[in-house]
């Protein structure tokens, strides 16, 4: 019988395409906007999370500044750290390496300066770091390679995609020389395009990464913005982080003007943003489903009174009240589910457009699609029930007498 209901529902929707389309419009708009927003958020979140790299579970971050600043980080520019910068020193780095449970420490420092090539200049972020940095960036080198540990004083540079295109005006400038503070650096590797804000607050697209020692040798001050601390094991992260904190506090004469963050804490800011986004989206979704549902209810009421005679005929040939109720509720469910499906399709198309036109990579997870389908069906049931109940309660004699 349920299959029958669906057949009847599809028939009657097919019989009134335009009206059904209008009815579904509310649901379509609601679903597509909700799915798009959620998938955008999910895409960005996943990009940021994967940015942490494979050994992220044993990662501890040390950043300058007060605790509360940790949640105020911007997703993008490292430059925004300016205000906090400077409270970490090279001594902190070296001392951290000595802390028990620490496997390695990778510093991320910036130097001021402008990169030059021929008569062009590029004002990017010049980063000084060590050979283990790629472990924490999770960003592939597209051409060439990253520098090795023994190359720490060599004048080589790894550049981002934007640097390659804007400074060198070509896609693979490996082997070309660029000038920083009067010293020439050979481009050894080029990162592949980075598509989102980063977990590590480094936008590699506009970065030029130099070996730490060689950057120091060209006579610039290196501001340490971040220390990536790798603990021996994921289990040791908490205790190691505590030891690091103690050591640094000692170094800073008891002042805690730095942050020691475990991975979860570092992601907290990001997650907080997405949590709020999710709550907001849920609110929008709720409203749009209510509006869509009322639209459906309205049309179903109209349909029921328009089809009074049909209801009378069906009852006369033996349809029970329950069967009539089932028929109309199914019709409303089909309307809202088809609306939901069209909404998902619309957001798939919208996502494709977003992928093509921007750096964002929205992802529609099966959970979201399922949830939206469930919500659509629920909307159908709720908004179809009253009209269907009215249809079911019609007196067959009166209904048959209705002319049309």
């Amino acid at each position, binding site marked *: 019988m349920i299959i029958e209901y669906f057949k009847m529902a599809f028939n009657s929707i097919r*019989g009134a395409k335009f009206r059904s389309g209008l009815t579904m419009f509310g649901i379509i708009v609601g679903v597509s906007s909700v799915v798009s927003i959620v998938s955008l958020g999910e895409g960005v979140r996943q990009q940021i999370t994967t940015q942490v790299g494979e050994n992220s579970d044993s990662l501890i971050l040390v950043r300058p500044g007060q605790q509360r600043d940790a949640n105020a980080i911007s997703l993008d520019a490292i430059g925004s750290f300016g205000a906090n910068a400077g409270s970490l020193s090279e001594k902190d780095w070296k001392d951290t390496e000595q802390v028990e449970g620490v496997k390695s420490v990778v510093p991320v420092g910036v130097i001021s300066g402008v990169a030059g090539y021929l008569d062009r200049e590029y004002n990017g972020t010049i980063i000084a770091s060590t050979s283990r940095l790629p472990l924490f960036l999770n960003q592939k080198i597209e051409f060439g390679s990253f520098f090795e540990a023994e190359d720490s004083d060599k004048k080589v540079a790894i550049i981002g995609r934007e640097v390659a295109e804007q400074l060198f005006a070509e896609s693979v400038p490996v082997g070309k020389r660029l000038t920083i503070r009067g010293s020439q650096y050979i481009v050894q590797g080029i990162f592949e395009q980075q598509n989102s804000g980063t977990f590590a607050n480094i936008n590699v697209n506009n970065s030029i990464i130099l070996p730490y020692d060689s950057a120091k040798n060209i006579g610039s001050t290196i501001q340490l913005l971040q220390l990536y601390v790798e603990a021996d094991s994921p289990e040791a992260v908490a205790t190691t982080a505590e030891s690091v904190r103690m050591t640094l506090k000692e170094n800073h004469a008891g002042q805690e003007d730095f942050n020691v963050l475990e991975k979860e804490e570092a992601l907290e800011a990001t997650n907080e943003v997405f949590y709020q986004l999710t709550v907001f989206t849920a609110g929008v979704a709720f409203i749009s489903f209510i509006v869509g549902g009322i639209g459906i209810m309205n049309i179903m009421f109209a349909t029921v009174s328009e089809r009074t005679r049909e209801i009378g005929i069906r*009852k*006369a040939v033996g349809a029970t009240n329950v069967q009539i109720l089932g028929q109309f509720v199914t019709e409303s469910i089909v309307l809202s589910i088809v609306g939901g499906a069209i909404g998902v399709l619309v957001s798939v198309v919208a996502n494709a457009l977003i992928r093509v036109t921007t750096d964002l990579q929205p992802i529609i997870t099966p959970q979201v699609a399922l949830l939206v389908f469930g919500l659509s069906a629920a909307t159908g049931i709720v908004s179809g029930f009253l009209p269907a109940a009215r249809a079911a309660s019609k007196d067959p*004699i009166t209904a048959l007498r209705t002319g049309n």
Partner: protein
Amino acid sequence: MSVIKIEEVSKLYGFGDATTVALDEINLSIEKGEFIAVMGPSGSGKTTLMNVLGLLDKPTHGAYKLNGRNVSRLTSNRRAKVRRDNIGFIFQSFNLLPKLTILENVALPLSYKGTRQTKRLKAAGNVLEQVGLSDRESYVPGQLSGGQLQRAAIARALVNNPSIIIADEPTGNLDSVSARVVMELLSDIHKLGNTVIMVTHNPSLTRYADRIIYMLDGSIVYDESSTVGEVPARVRRAVEALRHSDDDEKLANVSAMMETIPDKPADVELTEKQKKRAARKLKKARKNKKKNGKK
């Protein structure tokens, strides 16, 4: 055993002073295989009787036994099921669903029974063949003539092998040729052993029936057997009486004729008490009618 047995069935509408008696303690039993023509002026309770017999409506008082089973107090869902399994309806205005094909329309009662699609479409096809509409199976009602539509409706009424077929003025919307085809078909169905109850205003159609019931003000005032193929003398007389009347309007309104018919009370045996009660009710109803009319 009678297919239908109703005892002292009344149907009242409204309440208090506005009560209208549509059926006034009617007793009737119908045997399997009868073809009954129900006649009477407008408002005499024919359609209400059909609705009660067809389980579209519940009697206010009285007992209704269909195939020996008391069905007068069933819930509406139960009534729907009994209707689905035991009763076939034929309406004046055909009442086919315009968006379904003829085949689907005919199969509709079976779909509420839960019969599988292939099986019910096959059954519908067989009945359509019986009524001579095999070549119109895939048409929608809008593409068929009135006579064909009524034959399709008859097929729908037959598809679930009902105990009774209720036809409410089946030829009322048809031209005389189509009406004749439809009546012949009903007659054939009757000859196959089906029980048919037909409401009609057309005296000449009584020739297809083997029993004729006249109703007036909610009571059966006359109930007689007749020979199939003949219009009973009483009806003939009435028609002739009308022909001699110079009131053209009365001639047009055949139902008005019925007022001139019987002076003999119904054949049904009533006790004195019942008669008194019936008379009282009738009086009250007439009084109400008058009162309402004045308003």
